[in-house]
């Protein structure tokens, strides 16, 4: 079961006007892994993520999630899939008109069958999972810092215990300490809830700390997919620039000393644009 492809992308082509972003892109996400998608700015990482979520329609090609083509008109289980997957948007995308509590409760209330008392307990459970003090539950999103918003957005994404979690730049804009605890949080949740995680990131530290496999997007396709150790050995100018620069070398120390745990020694905040 662990090797089965939960997401299967075949011959994907994405085009905006005359600019081709992806051409003949193939990618498989296996059950239970943490797959990171990396690539230069404008290489279409976020677009690919949005296509997996069904927010954007590719020009050609298919994206199958749990064996079903989500962009086909005959797709019957889109609603089911939406409930089984969670997404953490880059800036949180919390509903600004709702309090923290209501934001996390929203997906559960939307099912219309769960009793309110159960939802109440669940919200506090999810807040605790995302490491948020209960005193923040009644605050509005505009009163919170960026890092808090991200963790609450994660709590909301986890509200329905998804099998599949999408993360868009989960550590961008967090301070190093928060970044580390976010990485730890995702690792522990991944272990506990047997999640499959698809993540887009620029942050090399969290990339190496989290990923089971890395997919490198370049030249409009997936250049290579493999474990971090495999990927850095591939000879390609982009990979060399991306991973083997000063930052990359520092971040990669975590790969060479596996017993030091998942958290890198040189936490640094990277936000590349």
């Amino acid at each position: 079961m662990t090797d089965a492809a939960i997401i299967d992308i075949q011959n994907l082509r994405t085009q905006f006007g005359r600019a081709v972003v992806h051409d003949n892109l193939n990618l498989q996400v296996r059950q239970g892994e943490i797959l990171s998608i990396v690539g230069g700015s404008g290489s279409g990482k976020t677009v690919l993520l949005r296509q997996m979520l069904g927010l954007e329609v590719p020009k050609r090609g298919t994206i199958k999630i749990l064996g079903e083509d989500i962009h086909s008109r005959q797709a019957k289980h889109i609603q089911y899939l939406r409930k089984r997957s969670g997404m953490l948007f880059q800036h949180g995308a919390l509903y600004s008109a709702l309090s923290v509590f209501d934001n996390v409760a929203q997906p559960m209330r939307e099912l219309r069958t769960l009793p309110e008392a159960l939802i109440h307990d669940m919200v506090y459970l999810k807040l605790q999972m995302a490491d948020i003090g209960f005193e923040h539950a009644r605050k509005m999103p505009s009163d919170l810092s960026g890092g808090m918003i991200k963790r609450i957005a994660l709590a909301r994404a986890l509200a329905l215990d998804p099998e599949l979690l999408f993360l868009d730049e989960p550590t961008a804009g967090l301070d190093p300490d928060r970044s580390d605890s976010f990485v730890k949080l995702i690792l522990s949740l991944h272990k506990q809830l047997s999640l499959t995680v698809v993540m887009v990131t620029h942050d090399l530290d969290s990339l190496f700390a989290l990923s089971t496999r890395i997919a490198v997007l370049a030249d409009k396709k997936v250049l290579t997919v493999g474990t971090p150790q495999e990927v850095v050995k591939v000879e390609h100018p982009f990979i060399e620039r991306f991973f083997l620069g000063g930052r990359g070398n520092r971040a990669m120390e975590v790969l060479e000393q596996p017993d030091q745990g998942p958290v890198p020694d040189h936490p640094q905040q990277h936000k590349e644009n």
Partner: protein
Amino acid sequence: MPRFRPPTITLSDQHHAAAVLGGAWLVCTMTEEDVMPRLSAGLQQTAAHADLHWDLSQITALDTIGAQMLWRAWDKRRPRHLVLRPEHEGLFARLEQVSALPIPRAPKPRLTRVMLLGRVMLSFFEHLYDFVGLLGQLALDLLRFARHPLRGPWKEISSNIYRTGFQALGITALVGALIGVVLSYLSSNQLRNFGGDVYLVNILGMGIIRELGPMLAAILVAGRSGSAITAQLGVMRVTEELDAMTVMGIPQGYRLIMPKVVALAIAMPLLVIWTDAMALLGGMLAAQAQLDMSPAFFLNKLPEAVALSNYWLGLGKGVVFGILIALVACQFGLRIQPNTESLGQGTTSSVVISITVVILADAVFAVIFSNIGY
């Protein structure tokens, strides 16, 4: 696609009272039709047994919602006899940990009616205070503009005139012409009773040029451009563009507010003339259909019936209404908080208040100029 068996509860009485749970206790299986009520009832019934042995080893999949359901049925503590799969151990450990944490109760802010009234009054005065500030800033900006007219925000002014003036031509023409037709039909029927058909020109001329033209144009512009200005400023607040302007040293009043006020002060009187013309045209055509009054006669009679000062009054109203609409819209736009609800509220109140203010100003005009133009 559902790949899981629904959750089940079976009671057995072999050696001791035992509840055997099976199936997938997942949110997707539990929220399917009818499962939830059956499950809650089953759990409640089962939990009522004292000293029950719980066997959870048959459960194929369990998520936090499923675990929470059980936890609630157990009254938020571990039952004495519990058989668990090792992989589910962590879930209940976490639940135990969370239920130990105190949940702070938010103090409900209780306001008495008097306090609510006070708050409304205070917010009214706050608005007034801000509005005076806005006016003062506008005066300073206008002074600065007058001193260095060449370095003024001409592009902003012209684009605002285009958007609030030119693009409103269609709607004002349509509404103006239709109101002219309606007014003409209504009054011609009444006038015919007295045999005073010729006075139709007086009624239409005075009514439209002095009152209806400026009013119609103002209400349409308040709905169209007032809301747009408020929403634009509000979104700029949400996206921190206003802050970016401040940081770069670009004065908001000079580059955002003054151009809008100036543009509306120029565009509104022009729109008033346009609306007047269209309404009179509509009225004239309806008069021909209803009273056989020829357009030539209508046009000849018009200057006699309406004194020129009425035109100037209408234009003056246009300028004042334009300035008021722009100021109210900017005032509400700048007060919007960075969230979606505030944006909606601000836009609504901006339109409502600007229309109200325009009507108030119109009443003031009527009182002040009561002996002019008759």
